[in-house]
């Protein structure tokens, strides 16, 4: 086996094994690296890259869609490029392309800011018209008037054009917590994104979402994506808890989803006992009490690091393949020095 190194414009390098005599595009795709391509026969030039080291040949019998000047500059078509040993190829796009849409930074604008519950606020931004994202992804934004950057998952549906909604836990001491109370429509806000690979599983079959607190945010657009994507509908379970009843938020939106999706089993609970709450009790993981469901489903968990870890441990005990668990964890802004970023595990 030889080694294929793929370099992207964001500085990232991805590596795939490649046999001598194999086609570069095929080796990359086989390794799960989704390089840009279309015709796979050398005529559309989508797969263009630049060979920066290593010996290569081109697939015989094709007239590649490259100008002589491009060939002289080392440009090759990955679908028609054969490795004779270790090869390094530069691609004219960022590595994020192979995951999802490209991130960009834009100037956003605050449209609305309001409390949803005792501890959770909704911040609505107006994005650049070209902004697009995958449900589950997050944004980084600079808290206006400060130099602090914070990351929040996008909680609105992908087709809610012209607005991005974020659900934010308000920490009294935090820069964002403090900003929420003085936010005004029209405030300018710098935004970067989208980022993240916490994306909806493409597996057909039941789906489980485990959401702790504002971990519900990215789940909402994922639910819409699930509802609108093609193919037969399968059962969906959404377990959502906050610590107290007065912290719960967006229950009306959840009830609508439950109404629109007859196969959605919605379980809402609170994890700290309060006298007046008559619903379910427990953290969101505890609300999923049927283990056969966990074993059969694609699992998506979003919330505190503790919740994510507990989910992984429980699944490990049940001998569930860790690859079936997708997770995103949030770190509250007050416990963090510097720039918190949701950590994504594949």
């Amino acid at each position, binding site marked *: 086996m030889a080694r294929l190194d793929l370099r992207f414009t964001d500085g990232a390098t991805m590596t795939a094994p490649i046999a001598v005599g194999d086609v570069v595009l095929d080796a990359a795709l086989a390794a799960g690296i989704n390089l840009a391509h279309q*015709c*796979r*026969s050398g005529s559309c030039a989508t797969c263009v890259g630049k060979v920066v080291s290593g010996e290569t040949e081109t697939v015989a019998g094709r007239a590649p869609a490259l100008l002589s000047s491009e060939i002289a500059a080392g440009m090759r078509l990955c679908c028609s490029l054969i490795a004779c040993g270790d090869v390094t190829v530069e691609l004219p796009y960022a590595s994020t392309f192979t995951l999802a849409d490209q991130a960009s930074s834009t100037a956003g604008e605050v449209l609305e800011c309001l409390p949803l519950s005792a501890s959770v606020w909704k911040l609505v931004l107006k994005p650049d018209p070209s902004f697009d994202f995958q449900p589950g992804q997050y944004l980084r934004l600079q808290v206006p008037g400060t130099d602090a950057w914070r990351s929040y998952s996008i909680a609105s549906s992908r087709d809610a054009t012209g607005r991005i909604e974020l659900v934010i836990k308000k920490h009294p001491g935090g820069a964002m917590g403090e900003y929420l109370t003085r936010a005004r429509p029209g405030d300018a806000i710098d935004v970067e994104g989208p980022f993240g690979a916490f994306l909806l599983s493409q597996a057909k079959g039941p789906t489980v979402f485990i959401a702790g607190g504002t971990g519900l945010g990215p789940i909402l657009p994922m639910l819409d994506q699930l*509802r*609108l994507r*093609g*193919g*037969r*509908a399968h059962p969906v379970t959404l377990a959502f808890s906050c610590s107290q009843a007065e912290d719960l938020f967006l229950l009306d939106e959840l009830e*609508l989803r439950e*109404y*629109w*999706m*007859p196969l959605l089993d919605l379980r809402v609970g609170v994890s700290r006992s309060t006298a007046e709450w008559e619903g379910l009790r427990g953290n969101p993981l505890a609300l999923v009490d049927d283990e056969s469901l966990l074993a059969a489903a694609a699992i998506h968990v979003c919330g505190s690091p503790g919740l994510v870890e507990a989910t992984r441990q429980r699944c490990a005990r049940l001998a569930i393949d860790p690859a079936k668990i997708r997770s995103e964890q949030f770190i509250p802004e007050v416990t963090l020095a510097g720039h918190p970023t949701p950590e994504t595990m594949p």
Partner: protein
Amino acid sequence: MSTNATSPASGKMARRQYEPYLNASWGVKNYWFPALFSHELAEDEVKGVTIAGVPILLRRVDGRVHALRDQCLHRGVTMSVRPKCFSKDTLTCWYHGFTYDLETGKLKTIVGAPDDPMIGNARIQVFPAQEKAGIIFVFVGDDGYEPVPNLADDLPVLLPDDYEFRSPHLLDDNIVVMGLHRTGNSNWRLAVENGFDPGHQIMHRDAQVILSQNLAFPLGLNPTSPEAITTYGEDGEGPVGIMNEWHSGHYDLVMHNDELDLHPFGTGSVLGLRTSMFLPGVLMVENWPKRGLTQLEWYVPVDGNRHEYWEVILAVCPTEADLKKFKYEYDNLWLPIALHDFNDDDLFAREQMERFYSVDGGVGWDDEQLCGMDAVITGWRKLVSRHNRGIQTPQNHPSPRLD
């Protein structure tokens, strides 16, 4: 000026319950839709239709109908506009010769480039097709949707034989279907909602089919209890739909408007007249245009602004003589006075609504002011919102490419 109508804000909230329906401007997907009458597609003939924005090519070979996406992979041209077939099991695009397998949609060869690596590695979507009672049905939706539901699940409910006033059904033995289809210039939902709107009797007041049969067509039909309306399929079994049980006694039949001193002139009634609407948008009018017949109507979305309006009349004709009589009555009576005179008014009404509700900036879905007569319409919208197999996304510039 003051008004009793609801404020736009509260209207918006109420409408969120059926938001999926409001997003279904191009129809629902993963359903059986009528594409052509069987007699419209002769042996070896190729024709193109558009259903929910999806261009579909139909070809009949050895009696069997094949349905493929009517958009070439290569440069996207519509293949049915110049049909080319060099063998019984393939279809060739007239432009550069991309040749597809009829059964699988796979690119089998390219006339002038038989060694191209794309051959065998690319395909266009094929759609399940079947014929029933003289109609070609095509299952339109996601590639690979399975299992493909039974046609019976996408037709009006098959009532048991002893159901009160039951009238002929498409799946009955000896069923004969006569009718037509034409394009209506309105969104399919306006057509559906007109089709079983219990409130528009006034529009049909002067219709030939009413006057010629001396019918006392009520001025209005207002539901008075939940039993007025039956819903089907909410348990996940069989067709999903909603029925106005007009014979049930749970409707207030308005026979007189004092203010205007209006009343029907006729005196007769149609026993068992009953309307129901099922997904994907098929109307059943039992005992219409007369007792013992059934009228079915489909409103097949073409795009966001047009629908293919199917109007057919069903009769059970066990003998040659029955068939002859039905055909005679169809040609000379039901076609002109029911499918045309009466239904022309319906088509007119939908097209008149189109501007208010247009997908191109219409405000109707937000600003309409429904009243008491419209309960069943709201019921229909909610039913579709909850129990659809998929909402079709707008198909303005769709790709034929499949992964």
